[in-house]
């Protein structure tokens, strides 16, 4: 089975069942938005998928191969790249070094150069800040840097945790557009965790709504947007 398949996944934080039997799948090339209130277990899900958090039971496969019980750095080499929430840059390093980090392990240095340039075109702000250390960046600039770095790893599956957090509306729009166009251009599979439900669903192919660690519903995003019950309960419009 190609794509991302999550089956009956359970992840605990101590006694808290942060992810409680979640199943869904995302086909290759699709953009899935994962929506849910604070504490729904979205972050935990992503951390479990990329080896940052150990899982209790269940399975998760990418293109048929299990992703679980692997180190994050090995998953990166398989094209599975996770941009964690909020602070996914190393403040002590310069912008340039943060970007370089994403391509350190790659052999194809030419492509690293190409994709770095693409990233700088996408986020010109970063280009102006190349030699500044990342701790001087504003919140939004940091988020751009984190996404930029992940792209340099040439992901095939990109997991983004709240990329819009703390960003200006215009930038959110730009980032969402960027994600959308990257997905299309690179045939990227994207799992996008978002509080900004409407924005995310608008660009997503499918939506996964979770609550208290369980699946509420999964379906084509347009359907979810149009479903009045869901709108009221989860999307707030």
């Amino acid at each position: 089975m190609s794509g991302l398949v999550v089956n009956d996944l359970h992840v605990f934080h101590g006694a808290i069942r942060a992810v409680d039997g979640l199943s869904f799948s995302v086909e290759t090339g699709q953009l899935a938005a994962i929506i849910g209130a604070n504490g729904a277990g979205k972050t935990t899900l992503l951390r479990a998928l990329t080896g940052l958090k150990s899982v209790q039971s269940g399975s998760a496969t990418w293109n048929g191969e299990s992703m679980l019980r692997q180190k994050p750095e090995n998953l990166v080499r398989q094209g599975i790249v996770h941009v964690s929430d909020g602070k996914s840059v190393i403040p002590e390093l310069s912008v340039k070094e943060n970007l370089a980090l994403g391509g350190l392990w790659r052999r194809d240095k030419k492509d690293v150069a190409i994709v770095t340039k693409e990233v700088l075109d996408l986020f010109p702000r970063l280009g102006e800040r190349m030699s500044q250390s990342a701790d001087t960046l504003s919140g939004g600039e940091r988020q751009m840097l984190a996404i930029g770095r992940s792209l340099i790893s040439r992901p095939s599956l990109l997991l983004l945790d709240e990329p819009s957090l703390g960003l200006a509306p215009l930038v959110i729009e730009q980032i969402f557009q960027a994600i959308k166009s990257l997905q299309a251009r690179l045939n990227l599979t994207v799992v996008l965790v978002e509080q900004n439900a409407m924005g995310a669903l608008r660009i997503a192919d499918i939506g996964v709504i979770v609550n208290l660690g369980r699946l509420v519903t999964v379906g084509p995003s347009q359907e979810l947007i149009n479903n009045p019950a869901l709108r009221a309960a989860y999307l707030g419009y």
Partner: protein
Amino acid sequence: MLKRKPTTQVQIDMDKNIARRKIIGAAFFIFLGIALYVASNIVDELRVYQGATVAVYVVAISSIILLTGYSGQISLGHGALMAVGAYAAVLSRNYWNFPIPLTFAVAVLAAALFGALLGMAAGRLSGPYLAGTTLALAVGLPSLANQFKILGGEEGLTYDVGFPPLALGQDFTQYKWFFWIAALAALAATWVIFNVLGSRYGRQWRALRSNPTAAALLGVHVARSKVLAFTISSGVAGLAGALMSMTISLVTPSAFPLSLSFAIVTGAVLAGVTLLTGSIVGAVVLVAIPEVTAALATHLGGSEKVTSNLPGLMMSALLILSVLFFPNGPQLHRRKTRKS
């Protein structure tokens, strides 16, 4: 989602909390005092002497708990501050013939003053920079004693608290006297520290430890508050220094080596750094382990090379294992519950 209690109910809970804390605290110290009194009468002289040493370490470890566990500053130089206290005490005794309790007060004040100066100078330092400065202090200060005749050089100055008062009876030994003095001082010191840590000062230290910026924005004068912690901690260390010198009746630079500074930090870690009551555990371990490991080494036998190094080996191994497996000290359960 959030249950609300009526204000009055909450208010009553709070009053109860404060009162309970006070009562438990007072009861604890009274109970401890009684227990110590009883203990000093039934155990043999060696244990009484060791009890005095434990009391000394309790005081020293408490000073580190206040400094590191609360205000988040590291000191590898508390041995030197103990030396300051000890020398101040002995000088006040030898030159002005101060009564014993007053010499302890002098020790506290002198060490606190020294700590304040150091804290002001080092106030802007953090982490390894502070560790480095205090380490250099620990190495540099005691050897200064050789430069001043009045400090008695390597040979040191005799610190004599005198024999126990006759009123205490014939078989009241010198060590019991040391123990009483040290235990009483330790009780007083820990009680004061307990109060300070429970007050807004303790709260401010805990706050600035994890987020100095946020603390400053709430009106905490971060630098001053850190210096205050350093000062109090130094004063307490000074008391420990005077007490330690009392138990060996001598103030000499070699009694305050770097290893002493390390030992009390170790004791604080064994105590769980943030746990004042743990200081007793830390102190007992510091006193007991050398004896236990030495006995074990003798028991295991082997060539002298081996037996003489075995206690060191076991002590170090124990230390490593304890930070690896009980980094938060000896408490059985830790509040780490996250409620949803």
